[in-house]
C-alpha cells in the first residue's frame, strides 16, 4: 500500500517548496511588521493590525478571490508585475506560494510580535550606551532575543502554509505539477473512484510532515530559551 507514485511525489515536493518559499519570503516582512506593531505608535495602527489578521477570519475563498482580482493576469498589480518584471502569479506555483504566504502571515507575525514585546528594553538602552547605533541594537540585541518567537512563528506559518487549501485553489486552481499541493491532490483523489488508497497515503504524509514541524519547533524553542536564559 505504501508505494508513493511519481504523481504523489510531485504533489509532496510542490507542497514543501510552496510552504518553504512562502515562509522564507514572508519572514522578513513578518519581523518588520511585528516590530512596527510592537514598538511604534502611528496613525492607523489598529487598521493595519486588523488587516494583518484579516486572512485568519475571512473565508479562504474570499482571500483567494481577492488575490485573483489583484494579482491575476488582469489584476491591477498582477498586470503591472507581468508587463514590467515578468513575474506571473496566476496559475503558477509562485501564486500558490503567495496565497500560502498571505494566509499564514497572521500566524507568523503574532509570536514574533509577542516576543519583541517581551524584550527588556533596558537591555537595548544598555546597548546604545555601549555605542550601538539603532540598527546595531536591533541586529545584536532585539533580533537574537526575539529568536524563539521568530522560530515559533516560522514553524506555525509553515504548518499553516503546507495545509492551505481554499485560497490556493481559488487563486491558482488545481493543476498537477504546477499548483496541485498535497491538500488539493487529496481533494481531487477523494472525488475520484478508487482514489481512496492514494488519498490515505497523502493523508499519512501530511501527518508526518505536521508532526515533524511541531517536534522541530519544540526543539528550537527549547534550545533558544536555554540560550536566552543564560545557562
Amino acid at each position, binding site marked *: 500500500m505504501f508505494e508513493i507514485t511519481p504523481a504523489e511525489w510531485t504533489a509532496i515536493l510542490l507542497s514543501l517548496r510552496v510552504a518553504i518559499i512562502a515562509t522564507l519570503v514572508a519572514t522578513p516582512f513578518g519581523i518588520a511588521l511585528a516590530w512596527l506593531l510592537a514598538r511604534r505608535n502611528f496613525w492607523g495602527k489598529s487598521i493595519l493590525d486588523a488587516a494583518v489578521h484579516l486572512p485568519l477570519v475571512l473565508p479562504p475563498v474570499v482571500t483567494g478571490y481577492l488575490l485573483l482580482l489583484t494579482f491575476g493576469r488582469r489584476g491591477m498589480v498582477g498586470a503591472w508585475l507581468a508587463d514590467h518584471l515578468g513575474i506571473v502569479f496566476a496559475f503558477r506555483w509562485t501564486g500558490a506560494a503567495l496565497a500560502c504566504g498571505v494566509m499564514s502571515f497572521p500566524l507568523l507575525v503574532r509570536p514574533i510580535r509577542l516576543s519583541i514585546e517581551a524584550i527588556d528594553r533596558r537591555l537595548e538602552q544598555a546597548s*546604545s*550606551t555601549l*555605542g550601538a547605533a539603532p540598527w*546595531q541594537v536591533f541586529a545584536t540585541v532585539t533580533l537574537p532575543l526575539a529568536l524563539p518567537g521568530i522560530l515559533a512563528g516560522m514553524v506555525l506559518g509553515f504548518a499553516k502554509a503546507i495545509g492551505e487549501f481554499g485560497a490556493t485553489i481559488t487563486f491558482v486552481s488545481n493543476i498537477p505539477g504546477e499548483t496541485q499541493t498535497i491538500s488539493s491532490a487529496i481533494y481531487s483523489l477523494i472525488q475520484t473512484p478508487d482514489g481512496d488508497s492514494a488519498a490515505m497515503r497523502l493523508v499519512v504524509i501530511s501527518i508526518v510532515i505536521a508532526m515533524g514541524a511541531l517536534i522541530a519547533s519544540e526543539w528550537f524553542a527549547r534550545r533558544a530559551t536555554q540560550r536566552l536564559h543564560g545557562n
Partner: protein
Amino acid sequence: MLRVDVTKQLGEFSLEASFSSEGRVTGLFGASGAGKTSLINMIAGLLRPDRGVITLDDETLDDTSKGIHVLPHRRRIGYVFQDARLFPHLNVAQNLDYGRRMNRLADDPAQRSRITDLLDIGSLLDRRPGRLSGGERQRVALGRALLSKPRLLLMDEPLGSLDEGRKVEILPYLMRLRDEGIPMVYVSHDAAELRQLATQIVMLRNGRVTALGGVKVLAVGTPV
C-alpha cells in the same frame, strides 16, 4: 568638564538641575525619587531634556535652543546600571567585547587583560550572565562599560542591588577605577559610599540641586 543645565517634566515630577563639575568623581547624592537617575539618563542621552544644555569638555551634547540632541551611541559615555543589564544571550567575554565591536575599535588584548585583572573576572569569561552572582554581574558590567573606552563613566547606584557583604566586595574595585583617571558621575543615596569615592558632590532633593561642593557638604544634610 561636565556642564548640565536642564529642566524636565516627568508627570507630576519636575526636574530643574544645574551644575558643572571638574572633579574626577562627581557624586550625585539624594534620596530615591530625587531625580538622580533621570538626570544621568539625560547625560547618557537616554532621556531628552525639555529645555537646557548639556556639554562635556568642548562638545555640546544637548542644546534644546539649537535643536541639538546627540544620540546615546554617539556620546561615548559609559553607563553602569544598578541592575547590570548584561546581555543574557552572550557570555561574559562577548559582553565585555560588545562595546569594542559596536564602536569598531581595534582589538586591544593588553587593555582587555588589564581590565579583567583589575576586576578579577578572568575566570568568568566563558560563563553566561545567568550563572553569575550579583557581585560578579556588577563587576562584568563595570568591565563592559570601561572596555567601550568612554570619556565619561556614569554609575547609577552600582552597589544598590547588592547586600552589605557584596558591597564590601565591590567597593575596592570602584576605588581602583577612580584611580584609572576616567571621569565618573556616581549616583548614590549612601553618604558613606560617596565619602569614600567622590571628589565632588552634587546634592539633589525633589528635582532641585540643594548643595554643591566637596564631600564636606554631605555632613550638612542627609536625604529624607
